[in-house]
């Protein structure tokens, strides 16, 4: 960074006095433009942004230092209150900044659940104390205690700034409650974030139903459990629209070709549906549970059929690594390819991490008994850049899915910067600077999150984040840059 950047010394949380980056690759998803350029930030404001051309632009490419708007994560678990051993608001926001995120939306499945505004106040207090400039946005629970039976204080939560309603961790199981929640949330103009899973089909499930689970003797987690729940939610959405034209359904962490097809059809029919996908569902596959460690696109043969990791020597790690256990499960390579395709074609509006930190105690257990979840907010960019490097995804699309895509999902409730997630001259600087050409090794020590539960441990990822600036203030700075 030394050759292209000048940065005044500063500490986390303080306004950025001066930051000059010359000869970088700028990505501005609002202007739908990317190319060589330079920026100057002074006293927290993006003072100047200049596109370079001709000789000045020579030698600058998307494989070097990249400047992009700060990322938004629609789906993280910060574990506070109730499970601070796994993560706190402070450690989660710091981890987000390391991942390039300047806004995160925390899920409501804390203990107690965020089913009334008092929990919001407590979480916001923790964020203020942390000193992190990363914007904390909050989802409220759909039902009291996420119990699925009675509606939570949706109106009060909306007044307190809820960006979405979700019982995530669990689906809204009753179709009656789902319908009523869509009607009420539609009245309030707040989207319903649904974790789509039919729990009857997943009772006791351990790994994606298919070849890997069969060979490993793990109870299958069927694709149908997600597809059925998505289809049902879409049908219910269609039924409430006449009464609640403001109803909005967002389907989070979709992992199957069938579910994404359903969203594709619903969008084509004009229904107000959006969805996100996670980096792990597009980059990793169920063969990781067996001990493979190759990217999803490397696990497909020329005909688009999943390879056999037992037959082709891809098994390099012990099977049953609980870091690979997640809900929804890592899917077959064909589904992972469909997830990536949905991101490419826009069916998936956003990439969200479903950052789910867990303690070692909760993960160091028998596979079937271990907690579900991957700590992912710090590795999202790296996984997406791996897909970019493999020419499966355009850099611009990856950045869109981390910025304007999620801002669009949040609509009018998209936080302090609204839906504009571009590089805006004269506004508070909100951006990430990363070196696409430099890698970093994912280790427990390199992660800021308290949750080191990621199957990517030990792996080198592309895209070292050098600097994250949120609302004009320093959120993260690479200690070695």
């Amino acid at each position, binding site marked *: 960074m030394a050759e292209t950047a000048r940065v005044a010394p500063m500490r986390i949380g303080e306004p950025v006095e001066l930051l000059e980056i010359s000869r970088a690759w700028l990505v501005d998803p609002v202007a739908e433009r990317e190319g060589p350029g330079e920026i100057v930030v002074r006293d927290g404001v993006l003072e100047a942004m200049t596109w370079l051309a001709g000789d000045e632009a020579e030698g600058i490419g998307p494989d070097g230092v990249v400047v992009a708007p700060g990322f938004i994560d629609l789906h993280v678990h910060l574990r506070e209150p109730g499970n601070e051993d796994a993560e706190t608001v402070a450690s989660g926001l710091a981890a987000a900044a390391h991942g390039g995120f300047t806004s995160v939306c925390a899920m409501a499945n804390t203990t107690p659940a965020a089913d009334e505004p008092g929990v919001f106040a407590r979480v916001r207090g923790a964020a203020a104390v942390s000193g992190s400039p990363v914007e904390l946005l909050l989802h409220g629970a759909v039902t009291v205690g996420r119990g699925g039976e009675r509606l939570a204080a949706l109106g009060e939560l909306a007044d307190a700034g809820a960006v979405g309603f979700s019982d995530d961790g669990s689906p809204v199981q009753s179709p009656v409650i789902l319908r009523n929640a869509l009607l009420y949330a539609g009245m309030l103009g707040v989207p319903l974030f649904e974790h789509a899973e039919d729990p009857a089909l997943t009772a006791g499930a351990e790994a994606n139903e298919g070849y890997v689970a069969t060979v490993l*003797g793990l109870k299958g987690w069927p694709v149908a459990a997600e597809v059925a729940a998505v289809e049902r939610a879409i049908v219910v959405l269609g039924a409430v629209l006449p009464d609640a034209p403001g109803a909005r359904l967002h389907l989070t962490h979709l992992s199957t070709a069938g579910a994404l097809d359903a969203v594709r059809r619903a969008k084509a029919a004009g229904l107000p549906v959006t969805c996100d996908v996670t980096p792990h569902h597009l980059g990793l596959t169920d063969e990781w549970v067996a001990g493979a460690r190759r990217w999803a696109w490397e696990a497909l043969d020329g005909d688009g059929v999943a390879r*056999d990791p*037992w037959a082709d020597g891809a098994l390099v790690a012990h099977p049953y690594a609980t870091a690979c256990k997640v809900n929804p499960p890592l899917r077959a390579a064909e589904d992972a390819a469909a997830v990536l395709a949905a991101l490419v074609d826009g069916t998936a509006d956003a990439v969200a991490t479903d950052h789910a930190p867990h303690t070692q105690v909760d993960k160091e257990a028998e*596979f079937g008994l271990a907690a579900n979840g991957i700590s992912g907010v710090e590795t999202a960019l790296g996984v997406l850049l791996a897909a970019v490097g493999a020419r499966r995804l355009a850099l611009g699309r990856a950045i869109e899915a981390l910025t304007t895509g999620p801002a669009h999902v949040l609509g009018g409730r998209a936080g302090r910067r609204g839906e504009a997630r571009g590089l805006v001259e004269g506004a508070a600087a909100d951006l990430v600077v990363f070196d696409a050409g430099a890698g970093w090794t994912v280790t427990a020590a390199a992660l800021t999150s308290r949750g080191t539960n990621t199957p990517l441990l030990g792996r080198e990822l592309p895209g070292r984040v050098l600097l994250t600036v949120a609302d004009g203030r320093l959120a993260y700075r690479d200690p070695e840059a």
Partner: protein
Amino acid sequence: MSAPAGPVGPSGLGAEVAWTQKHLLDVDVLSAAEISLVMKTTDAMKEILARPITKVPALRGRNVTIIFYEASTRTRVSFEVAAKNLSADVVNIAASASSVSKGESLVDTIRTIEALGAHMIVMRHGTSGAPYLAAEVFSGSVLNGGDGWHAHPSQALLDLYTMRAHLGDLRGRKVVILGDVLHSRVARSNVWTLTAMGADLWICGPTPILRGFDAWAARWANGRGPNGHGGFTVTSDVDAAVADADVVMALRLQRERMDAGLLPSLREYAARFGLTRERLAAAKPDALVMHPGPMNEGVEIAADVAVLDRSVITEQVANGVAVRMALLYLLSGVHGGAPEGAIGG
């Protein structure tokens, strides 16, 4: 695998490969040559078992801890007898009697067992993959005595030993596994060993409890299986499966399958899939009848079939001791430096 020839211990084993496995967690890692080594070592153990005194000093001073998180009599006792025949010191832990009921984690339990001086652990666990977690934290060897639906290596190897004792080379021999394969670690391990040996393996049962095996067989069809493993056939047509079979192995059907809504009734299962004399008549005249036990006579196997001359069910139990002696012996590593004849008496 073609490991260099080396001393493998007592004379008479004459094996071509050295035993390199520290643990035995699954049979999927065993090459055909390693499986042959187990078979030859089992031959030596059978000789010992034929003597008036069946005890040899091979594992003297070795501590073997047998921990079973699931109820089992025959496998646990078989391992205990095997270890004692080799003069190991044996500690038995039944899960209900251990600190499991106090909420201690598996990892803590294994560390405690190690601190108490165990050199080897034989483990039975209801969760697939649990022995891999034990192997990560235990410095000695872990022998999987059955985990969840996943693997039961010693059972598959004793099944193989029993088949070979009667049929010799299994290449092209038709072996049928009949029953609840979905929930069966015995079936999964037998898929690996029998396809490694070139048997013509058929998997048969009602479709709800065959789920996933069709896709598995499709993956391995046409020589696409992992190194050296042949394909296999999956069907719900019991008559086609049993026709001209050399071996028919019935699996236990548990009552819980009806409670889970997988099958209508034991009565209907017995009528459609039970191994009866009439069904067996379609097999080769001297076809072996096998069962890993415990049997539900009158359900998956008719009582009069279980006691036919060609039923080798009790022989499986007897061979189980010899196979487990062989596995404990190979895993103990004593063959490397032990004086010639450690098991030669």
